[in-house]
């Protein structure tokens, strides 16, 4: 799982991605890959940007992270 940027307050949010965060990360990364970004893993099989992004996320090499909103 990708690492979260823990909020600067004492409260550290749990390290599991919600399904929305996961979808957003894959989506943003897939967009980057489709426009020509270099994949961070060895691409075998499908060259579909979404599949590559999903694999990158699984291997935890995705270059994006989620910024969680801290309490107001």
């Amino acid at each position, binding site marked *: 799982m990708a690492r979260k940027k823990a909020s600067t307050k004492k409260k550290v949010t749990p390290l599991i991605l919600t399904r*929305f965060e996961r979808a957003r990360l894959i989506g943003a990364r897939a967009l980057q890959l489709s426009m020509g970004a270099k994949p961070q893993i060895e691409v075998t099989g499908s060259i579909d940007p979404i599949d590559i992004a999903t694999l990158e996320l699984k291997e935890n090499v995705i270059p994006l992270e989620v910024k969680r909103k801290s309490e107001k």
Partner: protein
Amino acid sequence: MDIKKVTSVVKKKKADFPESLIHEITDASERHELKAKELELLVDEIKKEYERAGVENGEAVGTVAAQSVGEPGTQMTMRTFHYAGVAELNVTLGLPRLIEIVDARKKISTPTMTIYFEENYGTDEEFVRKIANQIGKIVFNDVLKDFNVNYADMSMTVEIDEEKVKEKRLEYDSIIAKIEKAFKKVVINKNLLSFEPTISESKHAIRELRLLADKVHDLQISGVKNIGKVVISKEDVEWVIHTEGSNLGAVLKMEGVDKTRTTTNDIHEIEKILGIEAARNSIIHEAQSTMEEQGLTVDVRHIMLVADMMTSDGTVKSIGRHGISGEKASVLARASFEETGKHLLRASIRGEIDYLTGIIENIIIGQPIPLGTGSVGVIMKARD
């Protein structure tokens, strides 16, 4: 395995379980006669399940709840009459009842109360019957043996039936007192009463007499305000009263009434007498029973969310434009729901600012909504 033991194990495992779950675990452990080691394993398993089943941040719970409550509506009947529950009273059911609840109607079509009695009183049929007759609406005509209106003589005589008075457990003297208070020209001769119309010499004498007759006929001699028919039935070992009409305030004051179980289906009354939290619970209970009666299952959490939304401000608000939807902060949201012109015009003179934090506004201007994936912020990782 008692609840304290379970609570301590749960605490030890640092599992943040809600109370209801702890109760469930306790019940199950008793049923299956769990040993201490098994309990620990069980709590571990349940902790895993509990975390897996948690609702995720950003989830659009409002929309899901509204859809889950609204979608079964197409499967509900419109047929409102049904001899429900007590088989003697008509209660609104199905879709019309759900709409009543959600609209927070002040006047509902079939208000009804269920009155329970305290321990010693509840098993005493006599007592319950007496209270029933005190509460239920009884008119003078119900205790009369004979009712004569003589248009020729311009007179009216009635005969009180003592049997019926006793049957209904009423006080003879209080009836007479009520009669004397209500009518000026009454002649009482044991059980025979004769009435005289106040205006006898006029063209409308016959009509006067008829009106007087009706007034005597329908004079209410017993009963609490707003309550009509009353029915007694036996549930398990105790006697319970079901009423047509509702007056929680008056009934709760009566002696012998179990204040913890007596209830009504009129939500506004519960709000008035017992407060907003009770009203919230009443909304949940009523909505759930309406759905169940139709054979539909809706998870209680959705109904709870609707109820919480209706009552979060401290009063019971309706779902429509007079309640929650009409009080939204966003101008565009209100304008696109109902009464478009009014909201836009008023916004312009108040100088309102729409901060575009809600769903409809963002759809209107074509931006991602602040829910679900739209609530996630993504940034590039810093290069190591």
